[in-house]
């Protein structure tokens, strides 16, 4: 895979967003429409305790990705009520067209005491072309289970021949590290399948081999078909020190598959690397790969987990 970087295309500081969000445009995810591309992302407001709440917004680009047509000025999807899994943020939100509906698989966050938070995957549906979404229930569609004890999140859903396929992550442990002030999470990529997009079958097994160490954190899988293979991009990092030490931060990983379930990791062929300097020189994270017209694009975040926006790359032919 060989990518041509098109640079940072969106900076949240340049726009007025709903819900008092001023910084962060994390985990951009594309919904390709007839004459524009709607890109959802999670932005943040500070609540009265000084902690962040992540809210979903979108920006509409012309299909050349050079001109912004507009940003959402209303709430796209509200946060959950008291005690709900998505009370303290929705980040990320994956969108997928399903006939005349748009499904959103959300990652909802809820704050805890012994660890910072837990997360589960919710489902919401839009009937107005993605301007707003209604949740299916107040609880999650995918959450902790016997062998996935916490942090079930980062869903990416693809519908192939009327079967719903989901790649997501689950937490395996919280570790204490002398360099960090609180427990740090470890999570891995897994796979689930469904006939209706609501009830999912899964076996809680890691599907992408570790390359760093056993505590490697793997996040945000995104899958695209090209040629006779499926290609997965994701991000991965060390479990600690990843915020401050460049070498321990997020990078883009890559794997290939012929059947959507069994994957061979081939990071060396992924083709997207940190830049020498600039907005994506320290880390690369939260990739989203999509087809638009005759091109394959990747949206992704750079330094500081997308605090100052996201960028775009196009696959060279």
């Amino acid at each position, binding site marked *: 895979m060989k990518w041509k970087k098109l640079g940072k295309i969106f900076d949240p500081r340049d726009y007025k967003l709903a819900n008092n969000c001023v910084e962060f445009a994390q985990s951009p995810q594309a919904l390709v429409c007839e004459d524009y591309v709607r890109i959802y992302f999670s932005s943040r407001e500070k609540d009265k305790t000084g902690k962040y709440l992540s809210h979903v917004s979108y920006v509409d680009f012309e299909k050349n990705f050079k001109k912004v047509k507009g940003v959402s000025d209303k709430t796209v999807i509200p946060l*959950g009520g008291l*005690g709900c899994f998505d*009370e303290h943020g929705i980040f990320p939100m994956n969108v997928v067209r399903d006939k005349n509906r748009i499904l959103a698989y959300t990652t909802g966050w809820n704050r805890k005491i*012994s660890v910072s938070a837990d997360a589960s995957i919710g489902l919401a549906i839009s009937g107005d072309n993605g301007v707003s979404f209604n949740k299916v229930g107040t609880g*999650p569609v995918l959450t*902790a*289970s016997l062998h996935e004890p*916490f942090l079930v999140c980062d869903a990416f859903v693809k519908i192939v021949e009327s079967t719903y396929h989901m790649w997501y992550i689950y937490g395996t442990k*919280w570790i204490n590290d002398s360099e960090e002030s609180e427990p740090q999470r470890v999570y891995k990529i897994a796979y689930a399948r469904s006939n209706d997009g609501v009830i999912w079958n899964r076996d809680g097994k890691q599907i992408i081999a570790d390359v760093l160490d056993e505590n490697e954190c793997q996040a945000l899988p995104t899958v695209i078909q090209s040629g006779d293979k499926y290609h997965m991009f994701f991000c991965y990092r060390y479990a600690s020190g990843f915020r401050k030490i460049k070498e321990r931060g997020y990078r883009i990983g890559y794997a290939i598959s012929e059947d959507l379930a069994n994957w061979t990791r081939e990071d060396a062929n992924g083709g997207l690397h940190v830049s020498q300097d600039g907005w994506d020189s320290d880390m690369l994270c939260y990739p989203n790969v999509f087809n638009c017209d005759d091109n394959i694009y990747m949206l992704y975040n750079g330094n500081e987990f997308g605090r100052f926006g996201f960028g775009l790359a196009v696959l060279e032919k």
Partner: protein
Amino acid sequence: MFKWEKLGIIFNPLQLNGESWMKEYAQAPSAVIFENHVRVFFSSRGLPDEKGQYISRLGYIDLKRDNLFEIVKICRSPVLSLGETGTFDEFGTNPASVIKTGDELRVYYAGWTRCESVPFNAAIGVGVSADNGETFIRLGKGPVLSYSPDEPFVLGSPKVRMFNKRWYLWYSSGKEWMKSDTRPEPVYKIRMAYSTDGIQWTKVGKDLIEDILEKNECQASPDVFFFNGKYHMFFSFRYNLNFREENKGYRIGYAYSDDLLNWVRDDAGAGISASEEGWDSESVSYPYVFELDNKVYMLYQGNEIGKYGFGLAQLDSYN
């Protein structure tokens, strides 16, 4: 209707100089019958921490089979460990329901975690014992029954039973957190799931028992048994808020069913209520009904949700 004769209190942890984890409370009794004794599992607590928070642990006492008021053994250590950091059962395992299956015992229990905006959350875990309940090993680090779109939080008070070779789990499911002057309190209703192996559960997805107190009535500990050609459910219910006030705390409700799915509530048929005085004068709750040597018994907890232990009643008549 049922008519129960109260036989008195069986076990009060406050009267023991117990282990540090068993200082007060003996909640949600659940019995397994052996040749010469009846092992009663229950959840107990050490003293609260500086914030007044407790951790509930699972233990047991053995009662002599031919005299249930004779305690022949009290376990020394909790029979189930707490969960790891960040797991659903890190801060307690209460209540629990134990069932014998072949040579093993299975425990289904509510695991407790602590949250920021609400005081806690709960989900249902499972453990297995190969030594008659001396120790249980959890089958996974996560819950066996957890949240879903219409069961968003606080899955608790599981009661497991097997009928016609099928596993059934009755439990309470949180609906909404209500704000109050002190801390938020959840509203929860009785629900059901079934399974062929006790691991993969199918939720029925409906509230089984209609409310009688108020819309926010809280319902818990649904204990089902088959007797005289019908299924009978004894459960606990109370007001959502101020339930520590007189007449707002837990009492025992009753419903019956022909098919396990459709229930007719008939609290007057329960035949057991708080006593005039004594250990169960303010509230009775968390019933567990079992048959032993041709008699039907109910174990239940008394005042302050079992702080002073549990007692026994015997079925006097049913008509």
